[in-house]
Every structure is written in structure tokens, then in C-alpha cells.
């Protein structure tokens, strides 16, 4: 599921299209920083994440992993520094490497929604795709799949429990 976006990112990196690259990750960085800090300081952390990503891009640094992994690792690193009281408004250290910096690299690298939902029944995955992938309302999901609302509710509930359990195990 990530492959197409990773390929797009590689092209943007090659073209040095920093605007498109940072814009593409803006929402996920802000959301992750807010979820991580659980207060408004998340906006400051997000700003510092973007500063760090931008400085690295300007330096022309290249990575042996998809840019997606770099972004998530910079978020992890910056949040960790934030919570340990270290300054986050400074560039990443020289030689910083997302793989070396990661103790959960494989999780970020390999984890996508397909693998998260792999054990769900086909029907539940369809419900999740429409509900979370497209953001449809429950009634719209039911109409699209030709099911009753109750059937969608039940499928969603079961899928949800499974998803929550799977996520918790990650």
C-alpha cells in the first residue's frame, strides 16, 4: 500500500521538490505530534519537525529508506527529545540516520493498513476501507455494500475490536 507513495516521494526528492514533499506530510506530522504530546505544545514540536526535515533536505542528505520512514523517525526523535527536556528547535545531529535512530524501524518500514487488517474477514476489510479510507457515513457504507445498517454496525464493531487488538499488539 505504501509502495506507490514511496515511489512518488523518491521522485520528489530527486527533483528537490521540497514544497510538495513537506506539504504531503504536513497533516500526518501535526496529528502525530498532537497525539504524542496531548496538548498544544504538539504544534511547536510539529514546527520543529518540519524545520529539521527541511534542513536535512537543504543539506541534500539522502537516505537508504523511504522518505516516509525518515519523517516518522524524525517525529519519534523530536517527541522523545521534547519529553526529555532537550531542545528540539535545533537541527538533527550530523550523521543522524533514521535506521540507526530507530529501535522500531521494522515496524515503521513494514507496517501498513493491509498488514494491520490482514486477519480480518473480507467483509470487515471492505467496511473499514469505506469507513476509514473514504470516510463514508455508516448508512453510505451499507448502501455501497448492499448491507443493512445493522450488518455494517456489527461488521464495523467486530473489525474495530480486532483492529484495536491488533494495534495494541504492534
Amino acid at each position, binding site marked *: 500500500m505504501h509502495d506507490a507513495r514511496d515511489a512518488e516521494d523518491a521522485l520528489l526528492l530527486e527533483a528537490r521538490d521540497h514544497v*510538495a514533499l513537506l506539504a504531503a506530510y504536513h497533516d*500526518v506530522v*501535526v*496529528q502525530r505530534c498532537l*497525539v504524542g504530546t*496531548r496538548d498544544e505544545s504538539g504544534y511547536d514540536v510539529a514546527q520543529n519537525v518540519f524545520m529539521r526535515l527541511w534542513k536535512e533536505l537543504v543539506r541534500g542528505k539522502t537516505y537508504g529508506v523511504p522518505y516516509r520512514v525518515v519523517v516518522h523517525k524524525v517525529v519519534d526523535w523530536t517527541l522523545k527529545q521534547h519529553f526529555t527536556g532537550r531542545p528540539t528547535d535545533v537541527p538533527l545531529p550530523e550523521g543522524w540516520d533514521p535506521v540507526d535512530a530507530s529501535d522500531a524501524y521494522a515496524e515503521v518500514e513494514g*507496517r501498513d493498513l493491509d498488514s494491520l487488517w490482514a486477519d480480518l474477514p473480507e467483509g470487515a476489510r471492505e467496511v473499514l476501507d469505506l469507513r*476509514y479510507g473514504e470516510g463514508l457515513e455508516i448508512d453510505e457504507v451499507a448502501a455501497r455494500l448492499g448491507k443493512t445498517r445493522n450488518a455494517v454496525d456489527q461488521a464495523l464493531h467486530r473489525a474495530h*475490536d480486532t483492529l*484495536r487488538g491488533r494495534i495494541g499488539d504492534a
Partner: protein
Amino acid sequence: MPDVAQLFDEWAAALGRGERPDALSFIRRAGAGADELATMMDRYLRARPRTEPDPETVELARAWLEGNAPLVQLRVRRGVTRDAVVDAVLEEFSLGPDRRAVVKRYYHELESGRLDPARLSRQLLDLLTRVLETPAASILAWRPRPLDVAPALRAARSVAADAVFETAARARAPAPDDEEVRALFISER
């Protein structure tokens, strides 16, 4: 206990619609389930493929990278003048025309990044989302990029230098000459 699964469902569906749901609001609503919800949200964000940015986000990112003020970019993109925003603030909070100058100054400070948007009062933030036709998240998240400070200057900062910086910072900050307006722009929400 709040239904964490329900909150996750609402939040993830909003993301799926391309909205910018207020993550903090969802976590606060979770109460005792905040840890569980935050963990679910974070893991989901890691797994979810990034989406294509809308043209406005690209323009805001461009403004940010070029060192311009994203909030100005947002306002100009909507065809709203700074005076129109000031008028809206005066009207919304029943402030007389004699307060126009101070409101304008505070708003200028906000646009130029000298006021922290996270300190805006909820009422003013709500008004700005309506006037600028943008989610609160955009106003809160897009701040002017800090200007680079030469490393030598950082290293050379001393107690005396800090005093100079502090004095300069105080001089830049809006004077607390109108407590009502100040409370709109610098609140403790």
C-alpha cells in the same frame, strides 16, 4: 467510560474524508481511555499511507519554506483583507472603533509569528476559522518559519546579550494597553 472505539472511529473517518480532525479534542473526550486512544491513533497514523496534499496545503508549505507568513497566505488566498479581519473582530466582540488600532496591531503580531496562535482565545479562534474559511488546525499549525540565527551568535550569547535579547523581545511584544483585546489574543485556554 467513554467509548474509545467510537472516538477512534469518528476520528479515522474524518481523516478519510480529508478533514483535519482536532486530535486533542478526541483525546480529551476519551478521559480515562486517553492512553489507549492515543496509542491507537499513533499506530494508525504510522500505517496509513500519506494522502495527496490539497493545493492550499501546498501553497502554505511554499509560503513557510520561503519564510513568508502562512496566515497571510491563507488570508490573501481567501481574498480577505487585514482590515476585513479587524472589522470582524470589532463586530464580533462589540469593540468600538477606538479599539481598531490595537486590534490591528495584535492581529499583525499574530500574522507575523510574534504571537503564539495556540494562545488565541477559543472565541477568537472560532471567529478566525469562519472569516478565513479554514479549520482551526490550519491556523494553529502553520506558523512562520523561524529565521536562522548564525551559530556564532548563538555561541556568543552571554548574560549581557540575553538581557539585550530580552529587552528587544519586550519591545516587540504588544503593550498590554487594552486588557480586553489582549485577552482575546493571549489567553490561558
